[in-house]
């Protein structure tokens, strides 16, 4: 298998990729027009028909889809095939409160698993590897996606799913697992647990980590790499578009290649919807070119990143995206630095706190104040005052490493953070700007 899972397409010349997209997009738009009345109405309201889409260059003429559309069309409104052709759903809790349910035909699953297989091979995996999938199995796309890809590569797949840390470690050590797939925060937690159990990096058989599904920093990557003695690769995806594997890192670890034979990526201005030139930071938008059951066109991910077509020395030609900083609609700018609540959440979970927190931003003497309130948990509480203070300091240091600015951590009583509709109010910004 070597360096690539599907070399012909992964390393295809740009012209060939463009030609494929020019061929697929008009067909896909007509397919959606014929089979998804919800999107057809949107196109009609937008004054565009399939006849207007002659090549990929016409993509910008089409209306966007957003999380709100998924909510409005729930559950079957965006389904393009009869249920008898669907073989699976995956689902995500979503942040807007309504579940997202995505349908797959067998073809859709094959396409998705090809992508995760490409990701595993790009990270250096082969049929000789023992691949432990510690992403959650079930409705979440992480477990199913990497499991399928691992099968396609021919790895011995160890489907541990998430949780039960002792058992995870037992499988890693007993079966000499060489690849670990999970969320970065769980990887950090496993790394810490192995360290506490006295394992040194050289005792740990793992060589490769494939981590995704949440925001993580370069610092966190280095920490995990050092503690586990591995190379850690980022993988990106979203349930709406298929799942992990829409984009992934190669050996260069310099951006994630987007699988352009299946997905067209655009970067837009989140405020105006205007398409931005290559290299500009903006909101990532995806169009699935050949998905059958749940074919989304111009789906706004709300993820903020940039794209580059600079040549990658791994040999892959597909466009690369930078690690998304977080969702466009919840970014804060504090002391000139972009802060995403998801980054704070990552640090908290990483250190064993509940992901229940509140960010309080204010302004005193023209300087932003930045406080993070964290609910005390039984696990983090001890009768020793100095120890509680020390743990708080570690949390402050962790936040500083992740965000690049200092936050004041205040420990508050459990359940004391205001909740509305069962969801925590995450940000209180009292700055009058």
């Amino acid at each position: 298998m070597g360096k690539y899972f599907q070399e012909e397409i992964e390393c295809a010349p740009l012209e060939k990729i463009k030609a494929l997209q020019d061929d697929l997009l008009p067909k896909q738009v007509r397919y959606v027009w014929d089979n998804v009345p919800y999107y057809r109405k949107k196109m009609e309201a937008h004054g565009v028909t399939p006849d207007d889409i002659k090549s990929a260059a016409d993509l910008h003429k089409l209306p966007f889809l957003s999380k709100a559309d998924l909510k409005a069309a729930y559950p079957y409104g965006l389904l393009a095939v009869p249920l008898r052709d669907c073989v699976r759903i995956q689902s995500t809790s979503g942040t807007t409160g309504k579940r997202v349910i995505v349908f797959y035909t067998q073809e859709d699953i094959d396409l998705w698993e090809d992508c995760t297989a490409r990701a595993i091979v790009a990270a250096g995996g082969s049929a000789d590897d023992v691949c432990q999938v510690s992403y959650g199995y079930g409705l979440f796309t992480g477990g199913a996606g990497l499991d399928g890809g691992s099968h396609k590569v021919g790895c011995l797949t160890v489907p541990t799913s998430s949780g039960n840390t002792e058992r995870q470690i037992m499988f890693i050590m007993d079966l000499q697992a060489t690849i670990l797939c999970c969320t970065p925060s769980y990887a950090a937690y496993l790394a810490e647990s192995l360290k506490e159990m006295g394992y040194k990096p050289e005792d740990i058989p793992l060589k490769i980590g494939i981590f995704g599904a949440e925001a993580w920093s370069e610092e966190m990557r280095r920490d995990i790499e050092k503690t586990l003695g591995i190379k850690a690769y980022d993988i990106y995806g979203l349930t709406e578009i298929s799942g992990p594997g829409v984009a992934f890192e190669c050996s260069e670890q310099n951006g994630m290649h987007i699988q352009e034979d299946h997905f067209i990526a655009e970067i837009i201005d989140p405020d105006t919807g205007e398409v931005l030139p290559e290299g500009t930071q903006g909101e990532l938008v995806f169009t699935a070119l050949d998905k059958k059951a749940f074919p989304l066109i111009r789906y706004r991910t709300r993820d903020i990143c940039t794209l580059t077509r600079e040549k990658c020395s791994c040999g892959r030609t597909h466009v690369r995206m930078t690690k998304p900083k977080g969702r466009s609609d919840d970014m804060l700018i504090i002391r000139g630095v972009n802060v995403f609540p998801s980054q704070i959440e990552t640090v908290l979970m990483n250190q064993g706190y509940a992901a229940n927190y509140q960010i309080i931003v204010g302004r005193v003497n023209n300087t932003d104040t930045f406080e993070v309130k964290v609910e005390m948990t039984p696990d983090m509480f001890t009768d020793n005052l100095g120890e509680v203070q020390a743990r708080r300091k570690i949390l402050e240091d962790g936040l500083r490493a992740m965000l690049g600015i200092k936050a004041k951590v205040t420990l508050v009583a459990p359940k004391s953070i205001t909740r509305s509709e069962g969801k925590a109010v995450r940000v209180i910004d009292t700055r009058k700007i």
Partner: protein
Amino acid sequence: MSVNQVSVFLENKPGTLNKLTEVLADNKVNIRALSLAETSEFGIVRMLVNDVFEATTVLKENHFVATLTPVLAYAIADEAGDLNKLLKKFSEIEVNIEYMYAFAGKERAYMIFRVNDTKKAEALLKGKGLRSLTQEEISAV
């Protein structure tokens, strides 16, 4: 025998201690001894109560974070010099006291100690003729 002390996390702001005592009062939990350690933002309330199980249950139900900490309790004579005698024995066995608090009863005074190795300290003090109080004895004071 060591005694179970209930340690509770509290935010350092008006009303929080009262909220704690309200929950205990509503559930008829009697506080036998209480001590507070605080920082500018939060504090830890340490108490001996008549019913540890009831106290921790109702605190949990009311969203307090509480933990049980083993402490050693000794009864001494309520007169000048007796605490000094007791602490001299701690010195002799070279046990470090993390914190302590005390309360006086009608006839005797009660000293509560947190040490890092409760079992060892208790055994060594027993060797010096000191018997620590049981949970029942503290409840009955």
